[in-house]
Protein backbone atom coordinates (compact mmCIF):
# COMPACT_ATOMS: atom_id res chain seq x y z
CA UNK A 1 0.00 0.00 0.00
CA UNK A 2 1.20 3.51 -0.84
CA UNK A 3 1.90 6.33 1.56
CA UNK A 4 -1.23 8.11 0.48
CA UNK A 5 -3.36 5.12 1.31
CA UNK A 6 -1.82 5.06 4.73
CA UNK A 7 -2.99 8.58 5.25
CA UNK A 8 -6.40 7.99 3.75
CA UNK A 9 -7.37 4.76 5.46
CA UNK A 10 -8.19 6.06 8.97
CA UNK A 11 -10.06 8.87 7.32
CA UNK A 12 -12.27 6.47 5.41
CA UNK A 13 -12.75 4.29 8.45
CA UNK A 14 -13.83 7.07 10.75
CA UNK A 15 -15.95 8.63 8.02
CA UNK A 16 -17.76 5.35 7.53
CA UNK A 17 -18.35 4.95 11.25
CA UNK A 18 -19.53 8.55 11.29
CA UNK A 19 -22.23 7.49 8.86
CA UNK A 20 -23.77 5.42 11.66
CA UNK A 21 -24.27 8.49 13.83
CA UNK A 22 -25.24 10.37 10.69
CA UNK A 23 -27.99 7.83 10.09
CA UNK A 24 -29.60 8.77 13.40
CA UNK A 25 -29.10 12.48 12.79
CA UNK A 26 -30.76 12.11 9.40
CA UNK A 27 -33.84 10.19 10.58
CA UNK A 28 -34.35 12.44 13.58
CA UNK A 29 -33.84 15.73 11.77
CA UNK A 30 -36.08 14.51 8.95
CA UNK A 31 -38.90 13.95 11.45
CA UNK A 32 -38.30 17.36 13.00
CA UNK A 33 -38.31 19.01 9.57
CA UNK A 34 -41.56 17.33 8.52
CA UNK A 35 -43.26 18.31 11.78
CA UNK A 36 -41.96 21.86 11.66
CA UNK A 37 -42.96 22.29 8.02
CA UNK A 38 -46.53 21.18 8.54
CA UNK A 39 -47.30 22.21 12.11
CA UNK A 40 -44.92 25.11 12.64
CA UNK A 41 -43.99 23.47 15.90
CA UNK A 42 -40.42 22.85 16.98
CA UNK A 43 -40.89 19.41 18.49
CA UNK A 44 -38.61 19.44 21.51
CA UNK A 45 -40.06 16.10 22.61
CA UNK A 46 -38.41 14.43 19.61
CA UNK A 47 -35.48 13.10 21.63
CA UNK A 48 -37.78 11.75 24.31
CA UNK A 49 -39.88 10.05 21.65
CA UNK A 50 -36.72 8.52 20.19
CA UNK A 51 -35.85 7.21 23.65
CA UNK A 52 -39.40 5.88 24.08
CA UNK A 53 -38.98 3.91 20.86
CA UNK A 54 -35.94 2.17 22.36
CA UNK A 55 -37.74 1.55 25.65
CA UNK A 56 -40.83 0.16 23.94
CA UNK A 57 -38.54 -2.22 22.02
CA UNK A 58 -37.04 -3.30 25.34
CA UNK A 59 -40.48 -3.76 26.92
CA UNK A 60 -41.77 -5.71 23.95
CA UNK A 61 -38.82 -8.05 24.24
CA UNK A 62 -38.79 -8.50 28.00
CA UNK A 63 -42.49 -8.32 28.77
CA UNK A 64 -44.10 -9.73 25.65
CA UNK A 65 -41.34 -11.78 24.08
CA UNK A 66 -41.54 -9.79 20.86
CA UNK A 67 -38.10 -9.51 19.30
CA UNK A 68 -36.25 -6.90 17.29
CA UNK A 69 -38.12 -7.29 14.00
CA UNK A 70 -41.52 -7.06 15.63
CA UNK A 71 -40.35 -4.05 17.63
CA UNK A 72 -39.13 -2.32 14.48
CA UNK A 73 -42.76 -2.25 13.32
CA UNK A 74 -44.68 -2.10 16.62
CA UNK A 75 -42.66 0.45 18.59
CA UNK A 76 -43.06 3.23 15.97
CA UNK A 77 -46.79 2.45 15.79
CA UNK A 78 -47.22 2.60 19.57
CA UNK A 79 -45.14 5.73 20.08
CA UNK A 80 -46.66 7.33 16.96
CA UNK A 81 -50.11 6.73 18.38
CA UNK A 82 -49.01 8.42 21.59
CA UNK A 83 -47.90 11.31 19.38
CA UNK A 84 -51.37 11.45 17.82
CA UNK A 85 -52.92 11.70 21.27
CA UNK A 86 -50.46 14.44 22.28
CA UNK A 87 -51.21 16.41 19.11
CA UNK A 88 -54.99 16.13 19.44
CA UNK A 89 -55.18 16.93 23.13
CA UNK A 90 -52.41 19.49 23.51
CA UNK A 91 -50.45 20.76 20.51
CA UNK A 92 -53.57 21.40 18.38
CA UNK A 93 -54.63 24.06 20.86
CA UNK A 94 -51.48 26.09 20.24
CA UNK A 95 -51.50 26.56 16.46
CA UNK A 96 -52.97 30.03 16.69
CA UNK A 97 -50.28 31.17 19.10
CA UNK A 98 -46.60 31.96 18.64
CA UNK A 99 -44.10 29.15 17.81
CA UNK A 100 -42.67 29.58 21.25
CA UNK A 101 -45.66 28.00 22.96
CA UNK A 102 -45.36 24.79 20.96
CA UNK A 103 -41.68 24.68 21.78
CA UNK A 104 -42.32 25.20 25.50
CA UNK A 105 -45.08 22.60 25.57
CA UNK A 106 -43.01 19.93 23.84
CA UNK A 107 -39.99 20.80 25.98
CA UNK A 108 -42.15 20.26 29.06
CA UNK A 109 -43.40 16.98 27.65
CA UNK A 110 -39.82 15.86 27.03
CA UNK A 111 -38.91 16.56 30.68
CA UNK A 112 -41.98 14.69 31.91
CA UNK A 113 -41.36 11.67 29.68
CA UNK A 114 -37.67 11.50 30.59
CA UNK A 115 -38.39 11.97 34.30
CA UNK A 116 -41.03 9.26 34.27
CA UNK A 117 -38.72 6.80 32.54
CA UNK A 118 -35.88 7.61 34.93
CA UNK A 119 -38.17 6.95 37.87
CA UNK A 120 -39.39 3.68 36.44
CA UNK A 121 -36.18 2.27 35.01
CA UNK A 122 -33.31 4.18 36.63
CA UNK A 123 -30.67 6.02 34.69
CA UNK A 124 -28.03 3.32 34.33
CA UNK A 125 -29.47 1.85 31.15
CA UNK A 126 -30.87 -1.49 30.11
CA UNK A 127 -29.18 -3.94 27.77
CA UNK A 128 -30.64 -4.79 24.39
CA UNK A 129 -28.86 -7.52 22.47
CA UNK A 130 -27.86 -7.17 18.86
CA UNK A 131 -30.48 -9.27 17.06
CA UNK A 132 -29.59 -12.83 16.14
CA UNK A 133 -29.50 -12.13 12.41
CA UNK A 134 -26.58 -9.72 12.83
CA UNK A 135 -24.37 -11.91 15.02
CA UNK A 136 -22.37 -12.70 11.92
CA UNK A 137 -18.85 -11.79 10.82
CA UNK A 138 -18.36 -8.09 10.05
CA UNK A 139 -18.84 -6.75 6.55
CA UNK A 140 -15.54 -6.39 4.68
CA UNK A 141 -15.52 -3.00 2.99
CA UNK A 142 -11.94 -3.39 1.73
CA UNK A 143 -10.54 -0.64 3.94
CA UNK A 144 -12.20 -1.82 7.13
CA UNK A 145 -14.37 -4.45 8.74
CA UNK A 146 -17.73 -3.01 9.70
CA UNK A 147 -19.94 -4.73 12.28
CA UNK A 148 -22.95 -6.13 10.45
CA UNK A 149 -25.49 -4.37 12.65
CA UNK A 150 -23.92 -0.95 12.06
CA UNK A 151 -23.87 -1.63 8.36
CA UNK A 152 -27.57 -2.44 8.60
CA UNK A 153 -28.28 0.86 10.38
CA UNK A 154 -26.75 2.85 7.54
CA UNK A 155 -28.61 0.91 4.84
CA UNK A 156 -32.01 0.93 6.52
CA UNK A 157 -31.77 4.61 7.41
CA UNK A 158 -30.99 5.45 3.78
CA UNK A 159 -34.04 3.48 2.68
CA UNK A 160 -36.30 5.13 5.27
CA UNK A 161 -35.01 8.67 4.67
CA UNK A 162 -35.16 8.57 0.89
CA UNK A 163 -38.45 6.67 0.99
CA UNK A 164 -39.91 9.47 3.09
CA UNK A 165 -38.40 12.08 0.79
CA UNK A 166 -39.92 10.32 -2.23
CA UNK A 167 -43.32 10.08 -0.56
CA UNK A 168 -43.31 13.80 0.18
CA UNK A 169 -41.82 15.10 -3.06
CA UNK A 170 -43.17 12.71 -5.68
CA UNK A 171 -46.56 11.35 -4.65
CA UNK A 172 -50.10 12.68 -4.65
CA UNK A 173 -50.34 12.49 -0.87
CA UNK A 174 -47.04 14.35 -0.66
CA UNK A 175 -48.42 17.10 -2.90
CA UNK A 176 -51.19 17.67 -0.34
CA UNK A 177 -48.56 17.92 2.35
CA UNK A 178 -46.38 20.37 0.41
CA UNK A 179 -49.41 22.46 -0.52
CA UNK A 180 -50.67 22.53 3.06
CA UNK A 181 -47.25 23.68 4.25
CA UNK A 182 -47.54 26.67 1.91
CA UNK A 183 -51.22 27.61 2.27
CA UNK A 184 -53.11 25.47 4.75
CA UNK A 185 -56.24 27.59 4.51
CA UNK A 186 -56.56 27.25 0.74
CA UNK A 187 -55.91 23.51 0.83
CA UNK A 188 -58.65 23.16 3.41
CA UNK A 189 -60.95 25.26 1.22
CA UNK A 190 -60.41 22.67 -1.53
CA UNK A 191 -62.11 20.13 0.68
CA UNK A 192 -59.10 18.52 2.33
CA UNK A 193 -59.19 17.92 6.06
CA UNK A 194 -56.04 19.82 7.00
CA UNK A 195 -56.33 19.42 10.78
CA UNK A 196 -56.42 15.64 10.26
CA UNK A 197 -53.33 15.88 8.04
CA UNK A 198 -51.53 17.78 10.78
CA UNK A 199 -52.35 15.09 13.32
CA UNK A 200 -51.18 12.38 10.94
CA UNK A 201 -47.99 14.29 10.17
CA UNK A 202 -47.12 14.65 13.83
CA UNK A 203 -47.84 10.97 14.39
CA UNK A 204 -45.61 10.04 11.45
CA UNK A 205 -42.77 12.31 12.58
CA UNK A 206 -42.92 10.82 16.08
CA UNK A 207 -43.04 7.31 14.63
CA UNK A 208 -39.84 8.07 12.69
CA UNK A 209 -38.16 9.10 15.94
CA UNK A 210 -39.31 5.89 17.61
CA UNK A 211 -38.07 3.86 14.65
CA UNK A 212 -34.64 5.44 15.10
CA UNK A 213 -34.91 4.59 18.78
CA UNK A 214 -35.41 0.89 18.02
CA UNK A 215 -32.47 0.98 15.62
CA UNK A 216 -30.35 2.57 18.34
CA UNK A 217 -31.33 0.16 21.12
CA UNK A 218 -28.71 -2.53 20.35
CA UNK A 219 -25.93 0.04 19.82
CA UNK A 220 -26.40 2.46 22.69
CA UNK A 221 -27.70 1.23 25.99
CA UNK A 222 -31.41 1.87 26.44
CA UNK A 223 -31.51 4.71 28.93
CA UNK A 224 -33.69 7.76 29.63
CA UNK A 225 -30.99 10.24 28.59
CA UNK A 226 -30.21 8.71 25.20
CA UNK A 227 -32.59 11.07 23.41
CA UNK A 228 -31.39 14.19 25.14
CA UNK A 229 -27.81 13.43 24.07
CA UNK A 230 -28.81 13.12 20.45
CA UNK A 231 -31.39 15.82 20.14
CA UNK A 232 -29.07 18.74 20.82
CA UNK A 233 -26.91 17.74 17.87
CA UNK A 234 -30.00 17.03 15.77
CA UNK A 235 -31.27 20.55 16.37
CA UNK A 236 -27.94 21.86 15.14
CA UNK A 237 -28.31 19.63 12.06
CA UNK A 238 -31.76 21.07 11.38
CA UNK A 239 -30.45 24.62 11.69
CA UNK A 240 -27.53 23.87 9.35
CA UNK A 241 -29.74 22.11 6.80
CA UNK A 242 -32.43 24.77 6.86
CA UNK A 243 -35.55 24.61 8.97
CA UNK A 244 -38.29 22.68 7.19
CA UNK A 245 -36.18 21.48 4.25
CA UNK A 246 -36.72 17.74 3.82
CA UNK A 247 -33.80 16.88 1.59
CA UNK A 248 -31.62 19.37 3.46
CA UNK A 249 -32.16 17.70 6.80
CA UNK A 250 -31.40 14.23 5.40
CA UNK A 251 -28.24 15.19 3.54
CA UNK A 252 -26.98 17.40 6.36
CA UNK A 253 -27.57 14.59 8.86
CA UNK A 254 -25.28 12.18 7.01
CA UNK A 255 -22.67 14.79 6.15
CA UNK A 256 -22.33 15.95 9.74
CA UNK A 257 -21.99 12.38 10.94
CA UNK A 258 -19.13 11.93 8.49
CA UNK A 259 -17.53 15.25 9.44
CA UNK A 260 -17.61 14.19 13.09
CA UNK A 261 -15.83 11.01 12.04
CA UNK A 262 -13.13 12.94 10.15
CA UNK A 263 -12.63 15.21 13.13
CA UNK A 264 -11.99 12.14 15.28
CA UNK A 265 -8.94 11.37 13.12
CA UNK A 266 -7.36 14.80 13.28
CA UNK A 267 -8.43 16.24 16.57
CA UNK A 268 -10.59 13.87 18.59
CA UNK A 269 -11.26 16.43 21.32
CA UNK A 270 -13.23 18.57 18.87
CA UNK A 271 -15.41 15.81 17.47
CA UNK A 272 -18.20 16.55 19.93
CA UNK A 273 -18.23 20.27 19.18
CA UNK A 274 -17.47 20.42 15.47
CA UNK A 275 -21.20 20.32 14.63
CA UNK A 276 -21.82 23.45 16.65
CA UNK A 277 -18.85 25.25 15.10
CA UNK A 278 -20.31 24.48 11.67
CA UNK A 279 -23.72 25.64 12.86
CA UNK A 280 -22.28 28.97 13.97
CA UNK A 281 -20.51 29.46 10.64
CA UNK A 282 -23.60 28.54 8.61
CA UNK A 283 -25.76 30.87 10.68
CA UNK A 284 -23.33 33.71 9.99
CA UNK A 285 -22.97 33.04 6.27
CA UNK A 286 -26.40 31.64 5.36
CA UNK A 287 -28.93 32.28 8.13
CA UNK A 288 -31.63 30.26 6.32
CA UNK A 289 -29.46 27.14 6.37
CA UNK A 290 -27.68 25.37 3.52
CA UNK A 291 -30.88 24.12 1.89
CA UNK A 292 -33.32 26.63 3.33
CA UNK A 293 -35.41 29.10 1.40
CA UNK A 294 -35.48 32.65 2.64
Amino acid sequence: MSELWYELEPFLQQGTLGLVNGAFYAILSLGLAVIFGMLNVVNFAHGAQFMLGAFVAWMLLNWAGIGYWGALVLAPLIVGLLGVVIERTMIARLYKLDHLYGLLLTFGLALIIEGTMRNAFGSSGLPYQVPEAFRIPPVDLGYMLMPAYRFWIVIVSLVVCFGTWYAIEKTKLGSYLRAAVERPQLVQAFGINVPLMMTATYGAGVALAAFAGVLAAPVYSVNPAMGANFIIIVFAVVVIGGMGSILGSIVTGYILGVIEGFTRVYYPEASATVVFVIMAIVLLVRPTGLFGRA
Partner: protein
Amino acid sequence: MLQVSGLEAWYGESHVLHGVDLEVAEGEVVTLLGRNGAGKSTTIKAIMGVLESRKGSVRFQGTETITLPPNRIARLGIAWCPEERGIFASLTVKENLFLPPVIGPGGVTLDRIYALFPNLKERLGSQGTKLSGGEQQMLAIARIMRTGAKLLLLDEPTEGLAPVIIQQIGRTIRALKEAGLTVLLVEQNFRFAQKLADRHYVMEDGRIVDMIPAGRLEANMDRLHAYLGV
Protein backbone atom coordinates in the same frame (compact mmCIF):
# COMPACT_ATOMS: atom_id res chain seq x y z
CA MET B 1 -78.74 28.16 -4.55
CA LEU B 2 -76.84 30.48 -2.20
CA GLN B 3 -78.60 32.59 0.40
CA VAL B 4 -76.51 34.87 2.57
CA SER B 5 -78.27 36.82 5.26
CA GLY B 6 -77.03 38.98 8.09
CA LEU B 7 -73.47 37.83 7.48
CA GLU B 8 -70.97 39.49 9.80
CA ALA B 9 -67.24 38.90 9.94
CA TRP B 10 -64.17 40.07 11.81
CA TYR B 11 -60.46 40.24 11.14
CA GLY B 12 -59.11 39.93 14.64
CA GLU B 13 -60.69 42.83 16.50
CA SER B 14 -61.95 44.76 13.52
CA HIS B 15 -65.50 44.24 12.42
CA VAL B 16 -65.48 44.20 8.61
CA LEU B 17 -68.83 42.80 7.46
CA HIS B 18 -71.93 44.33 8.99
CA GLY B 19 -74.76 42.12 7.88
CA VAL B 20 -74.38 41.17 4.23
CA ASP B 21 -77.52 39.93 2.46
CA LEU B 22 -77.35 38.44 -1.02
CA GLU B 23 -78.70 35.61 -3.07
CA VAL B 24 -77.40 33.76 -6.06
CA ALA B 25 -79.69 31.51 -8.09
CA GLU B 26 -78.51 28.37 -9.83
CA GLY B 27 -76.83 29.08 -13.18
CA GLU B 28 -76.41 32.80 -12.52
CA VAL B 29 -73.27 34.87 -12.81
CA VAL B 30 -73.43 37.55 -10.14
CA THR B 31 -70.82 40.18 -9.39
CA LEU B 32 -69.88 41.98 -6.24
CA LEU B 33 -68.83 45.51 -7.09
CA GLY B 34 -67.51 48.17 -4.80
CA ARG B 35 -64.49 50.24 -3.94
CA ASN B 36 -61.34 48.91 -2.35
CA GLY B 37 -61.99 47.89 1.21
CA ALA B 38 -65.76 47.65 0.80
CA GLY B 39 -65.65 44.01 1.96
CA LYS B 40 -66.01 42.12 -1.31
CA SER B 41 -63.14 39.66 -0.81
CA THR B 42 -64.08 39.30 2.83
CA THR B 43 -67.61 38.32 1.82
CA ILE B 44 -66.19 35.60 -0.43
CA LYS B 45 -63.90 34.36 2.32
CA ALA B 46 -66.72 34.38 4.83
CA ILE B 47 -68.86 32.29 2.48
CA MET B 48 -65.97 29.85 2.07
CA GLY B 49 -65.53 29.70 5.82
CA VAL B 50 -61.86 30.64 5.89
CA LEU B 51 -62.30 33.55 8.28
CA GLU B 52 -61.79 32.87 11.93
CA SER B 53 -64.96 34.49 13.14
CA ARG B 54 -68.17 34.97 11.25
CA LYS B 55 -71.82 34.88 12.12
CA GLY B 56 -75.18 35.19 10.45
CA SER B 57 -76.42 32.70 7.92
CA VAL B 58 -74.96 31.22 4.74
CA ARG B 59 -77.20 28.60 3.21
CA PHE B 60 -76.05 26.57 0.22
CA GLN B 61 -78.63 24.39 -1.51
CA GLY B 62 -80.62 24.46 1.69
CA THR B 63 -77.73 23.52 4.02
CA GLU B 64 -76.68 25.99 6.70
CA THR B 65 -72.87 26.28 6.52
CA ILE B 66 -72.07 28.96 9.08
CA THR B 67 -70.69 26.50 11.63
CA LEU B 68 -68.93 24.18 9.16
CA PRO B 69 -65.14 24.14 8.60
CA PRO B 70 -63.96 25.07 5.08
CA ASN B 71 -63.25 21.48 4.03
CA ARG B 72 -66.88 20.52 4.71
CA ILE B 73 -68.16 23.61 2.90
CA ALA B 74 -66.01 22.74 -0.12
CA ARG B 75 -67.43 19.23 -0.15
CA LEU B 76 -70.95 20.66 -0.48
CA GLY B 77 -69.91 22.00 -3.88
CA ILE B 78 -68.38 25.44 -3.41
CA ALA B 79 -64.93 26.26 -4.82
CA TRP B 80 -62.81 29.34 -4.25
CA CYS B 81 -60.26 31.06 -6.45
CA PRO B 82 -58.51 33.52 -4.14
CA GLU B 83 -57.41 36.99 -5.13
CA GLU B 84 -53.72 36.14 -4.75
CA ARG B 85 -54.39 33.07 -6.95
CA GLY B 86 -52.76 30.69 -4.50
CA ILE B 87 -50.53 28.79 -6.88
CA PHE B 88 -48.24 26.50 -4.90
CA ALA B 89 -44.53 27.07 -5.50
CA SER B 90 -43.51 23.63 -4.28
CA LEU B 91 -45.88 21.90 -6.70
CA THR B 92 -45.64 21.48 -10.45
CA VAL B 93 -48.34 22.87 -12.73
CA LYS B 94 -49.76 19.38 -13.02
CA GLU B 95 -49.76 18.85 -9.26
CA ASN B 96 -51.43 22.23 -8.80
CA LEU B 97 -54.07 21.32 -11.36
CA PHE B 98 -54.87 17.98 -9.73
CA LEU B 99 -54.59 19.12 -6.13
CA PRO B 100 -58.24 19.94 -5.39
CA PRO B 101 -60.05 16.64 -4.98
CA VAL B 102 -63.05 15.93 -7.19
CA ILE B 103 -66.04 16.56 -4.96
CA GLY B 104 -68.88 15.65 -7.28
CA PRO B 105 -69.87 14.68 -10.80
CA GLY B 106 -70.13 17.17 -13.64
CA GLY B 107 -66.67 18.74 -13.50
CA VAL B 108 -65.25 20.24 -16.67
CA THR B 109 -63.20 17.61 -18.50
CA LEU B 110 -59.45 17.92 -18.87
CA ASP B 111 -59.76 18.09 -22.66
CA ARG B 112 -62.08 21.04 -22.33
CA ILE B 113 -59.75 22.72 -19.84
CA TYR B 114 -56.76 22.26 -22.12
CA ALA B 115 -58.83 23.61 -25.03
CA LEU B 116 -59.63 26.74 -23.02
CA PHE B 117 -56.07 27.11 -21.69
CA PRO B 118 -53.66 25.58 -24.21
CA ASN B 119 -50.67 27.16 -22.42
CA LEU B 120 -51.23 25.03 -19.35
CA LYS B 121 -50.99 21.77 -21.23
CA GLU B 122 -47.57 22.73 -22.54
CA ARG B 123 -46.24 23.58 -19.11
CA LEU B 124 -47.52 20.75 -16.94
CA GLY B 125 -44.03 19.90 -15.71
CA SER B 126 -43.01 23.44 -14.72
CA GLN B 127 -42.95 24.72 -11.19
CA GLY B 128 -46.33 26.37 -10.45
CA THR B 129 -44.97 29.81 -9.74
CA LYS B 130 -42.73 29.87 -12.81
CA LEU B 131 -45.84 30.59 -14.89
CA SER B 132 -46.68 34.15 -15.91
CA GLY B 133 -49.32 35.99 -13.92
CA GLY B 134 -51.93 35.27 -16.56
CA GLU B 135 -51.08 31.60 -16.74
CA GLN B 136 -51.20 31.36 -12.95
CA GLN B 137 -54.68 32.86 -13.01
CA MET B 138 -55.74 30.34 -15.65
CA LEU B 139 -54.33 27.53 -13.55
CA ALA B 140 -56.13 28.82 -10.46
CA ILE B 141 -59.45 28.79 -12.32
CA ALA B 142 -58.75 25.55 -14.20
CA ARG B 143 -58.03 23.56 -11.07
CA ILE B 144 -61.40 24.35 -9.50
CA MET B 145 -63.28 23.73 -12.77
CA ARG B 146 -62.49 20.04 -12.78
CA THR B 147 -63.70 19.34 -9.23
CA GLY B 148 -67.41 19.29 -10.02
CA ALA B 149 -68.11 22.23 -7.70
CA LYS B 150 -71.47 23.87 -8.46
CA LEU B 151 -70.69 27.37 -7.21
CA LEU B 152 -67.41 29.10 -8.04
CA LEU B 153 -66.26 32.07 -6.00
CA LEU B 154 -63.84 34.05 -8.18
CA ASP B 155 -61.97 36.87 -6.49
CA GLU B 156 -60.69 39.49 -8.96
CA PRO B 157 -59.62 37.08 -11.69
CA THR B 158 -58.56 39.88 -14.05
CA GLU B 159 -56.46 41.90 -11.63
CA GLY B 160 -53.19 43.03 -13.17
CA LEU B 161 -53.57 41.02 -16.38
CA ALA B 162 -53.14 41.96 -20.04
CA PRO B 163 -56.29 42.59 -22.13
CA VAL B 164 -55.86 39.47 -24.25
CA ILE B 165 -55.73 37.30 -21.14
CA ILE B 166 -58.71 39.09 -19.64
CA GLN B 167 -60.62 38.14 -22.79
CA GLN B 168 -59.57 34.54 -22.38
CA ILE B 169 -60.81 34.51 -18.80
CA GLY B 170 -64.05 36.15 -19.92
CA ARG B 171 -64.57 33.34 -22.44
CA THR B 172 -63.92 30.83 -19.69
CA ILE B 173 -66.50 32.31 -17.36
CA ARG B 174 -69.01 32.29 -20.21
CA ALA B 175 -68.19 28.63 -20.84
CA LEU B 176 -68.73 27.88 -17.15
CA LYS B 177 -72.11 29.56 -17.30
CA GLU B 178 -73.06 27.57 -20.38
CA ALA B 179 -72.06 24.41 -18.54
CA GLY B 180 -74.64 25.34 -15.89
CA LEU B 181 -72.24 26.45 -13.16
CA THR B 182 -73.00 29.31 -10.84
CA VAL B 183 -70.43 32.06 -10.37
CA LEU B 184 -70.06 34.75 -7.74
CA LEU B 185 -67.47 37.15 -9.08
CA VAL B 186 -65.65 39.93 -7.28
CA GLU B 187 -64.46 42.51 -9.78
CA GLN B 188 -62.89 45.93 -9.85
CA ASN B 189 -62.96 45.90 -13.63
CA PHE B 190 -66.54 46.93 -14.23
CA ARG B 191 -66.29 46.76 -18.03
CA PHE B 192 -65.33 43.12 -17.71
CA ALA B 193 -68.08 42.30 -15.22
CA GLN B 194 -70.69 44.13 -17.27
CA LYS B 195 -70.37 41.72 -20.19
CA LEU B 196 -70.73 38.59 -18.09
CA ALA B 197 -73.05 39.10 -15.18
CA ASP B 198 -76.79 38.63 -14.79
CA ARG B 199 -76.90 40.87 -11.74
CA HIS B 200 -74.61 43.20 -9.87
CA TYR B 201 -74.48 43.71 -6.13
CA VAL B 202 -72.84 46.88 -4.89
CA MET B 203 -71.01 46.86 -1.55
CA GLU B 204 -70.05 49.73 0.69
CA ASP B 205 -68.56 49.58 4.19
CA GLY B 206 -69.27 45.91 4.73
CA ARG B 207 -72.88 45.97 3.51
CA ILE B 208 -74.75 45.38 0.28
CA VAL B 209 -76.18 48.77 -0.67
CA ASP B 210 -77.74 48.06 -4.03
CA MET B 211 -78.58 45.39 -6.57
CA ILE B 212 -78.79 46.16 -10.27
CA PRO B 213 -79.92 43.53 -12.79
CA ALA B 214 -77.97 43.50 -16.04
CA GLY B 215 -81.03 44.63 -18.00
CA ARG B 216 -81.39 47.83 -15.97
CA LEU B 217 -77.71 48.67 -15.98
CA GLU B 218 -77.90 51.38 -18.65
CA ALA B 219 -80.60 53.24 -16.76
CA ASN B 220 -78.65 53.07 -13.52
CA MET B 221 -75.21 53.99 -14.82
CA ASP B 222 -75.05 57.30 -12.96
CA ARG B 223 -75.96 55.67 -9.68
CA LEU B 224 -73.33 53.01 -10.18
CA HIS B 225 -70.65 55.55 -11.04
CA ALA B 226 -71.44 57.37 -7.85
CA TYR B 227 -70.99 54.15 -5.85
CA LEU B 228 -67.77 53.19 -7.50
CA GLY B 229 -66.41 56.70 -7.68
CA VAL B 230 -65.34 56.43 -11.30
